[in-house]
């Protein structure tokens, strides 16, 4: 990727011309000249459970955006300008896939498995299972189960209406679709009055879950069966709601929200 001064000057001129003319062939030329940067950054994110080809594609699209937005008059090197854009898009890609970059695949898989395992055991035992029981059932160590519980927090803050990939048990058709009748209950004036204004910044269905857990005192398992979603999903939604409330200053430590 290292260019000599002559090449750099030539590219700069092309950027100036592209900024003026918006000529497509010039744009393509600029993309080609920098594609190695996109590939290099994409490789930095490989081995995290996503095919390299997909990552290169994401990085290339980000490169395209960067070329289009680059203003050569501001005196910045293109690579300096483009790198954060490309890295940002790559990270977003992982988040869109539902996982923050640092969660190992084994833990991701275990997290997805937790829903089923916890529900099965709860039914068998007639109570919430312990961590060693979950570990045994899932063929994992206790530490892995704890990590997998923690991994629920790595989920991106997606819309509750959006279908989620890879967890088809309860989310495949969109959570909102599954909550149907419960929403009616949330519109109940009484509930709204009590929640307002502390929770009003949350989406209605998450208000309901937070309300049931912290105001009605239902356990996560009870909420799960009441809403017909998995307990792990309740846990995930609660964690997400608390994070949102924190970011909006309803909880302590607002300026430090993760």
């Amino acid at each position: 990727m290292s260019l000599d001064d002559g090449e750099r000057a030539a590219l700069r001129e092309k950027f100036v011309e592209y900024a003026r003319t918006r000529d497509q062939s010039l744009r393509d030329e600029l993309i080609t000249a920098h594609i190695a940067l996109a590939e290099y950054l994409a490789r930095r994110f490989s081995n995290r459970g996503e095919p390299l080809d997909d990552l290169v594609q994401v990085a290339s699209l980000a490169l395209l955006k960067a070329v289009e937005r680059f203003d050569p008059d501001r005196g910045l090197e293109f690579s300096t300008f483009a790198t954060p854009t490309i890295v940002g898009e790559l990270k977003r890609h992982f988040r869109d896939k539902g996982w923050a970059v640092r969660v190992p695949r084994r833990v991701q898989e275990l997290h997805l498995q937790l829903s089923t395992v916890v529900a099965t055991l709860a039914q068998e035992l007639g109570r919430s299972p312990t961590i060693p029981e979950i570990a045994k059932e899932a063929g994992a160590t206790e530490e892995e189960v704890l990590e997998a519980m923690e991994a629920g927090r790595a989920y991106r803050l997606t819309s509750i209406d959006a279908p989620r990939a890879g967890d088809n048990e309860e989310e495949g058709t969109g959570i909102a679709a599954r909550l149907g009748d419960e929403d009616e209950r949330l519109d109940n004036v009484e509930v709204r009055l009590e929640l307002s204004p502390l929770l009003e910044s949350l989406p209605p269905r998450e208000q309901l879950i937070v309300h049931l857990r912290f105001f009605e005192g239902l356990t996560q398992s009870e909420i799960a069966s009441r809403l017909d979603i998995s307990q792990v999903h309740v846990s995930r939604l609660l964690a997400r709601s608390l994070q949102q409330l924190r970011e909006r200053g309803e909880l302590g430590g607002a300026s430090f929200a993760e």
Partner: protein
Amino acid sequence: MVEVDDEVRLVIPAEPGFLRLARLTAAAVASRMGFTFDEVEDLRIAVDELCYFLLGGRAGLGAITLVCRIGDDGLDVTGAGSWTNGAGSSATPTQLPELSRRILESVVDEYECDGDSAAPSFRLLKRRSAA
């Protein structure tokens, strides 16, 4: 005060990125004590809430010391913030917001916290259900 049989101590930088270690540590101790999935989830929420309370927008808070004590009665967790270079003298005391209190009341059996500027701290007790 619970009778102390065993103790796990963790010191982390006072930054949100390290709070997962606090949650994990408390969860791991609770797991050893035979807490259920539900109870471990509750504990994680409480530890998170109280650690954020310690951070409380305090610039210069250097570290959080978390102590998990395994007692006959349950798991007792204390957290204390310490300052770098005596920065605490200029810090403003903080209070736990109403919603945080509500949350803590429903996830742990006892909790107390002190937003004192010189030495912010908290303590919680989570009892094991009689399974």
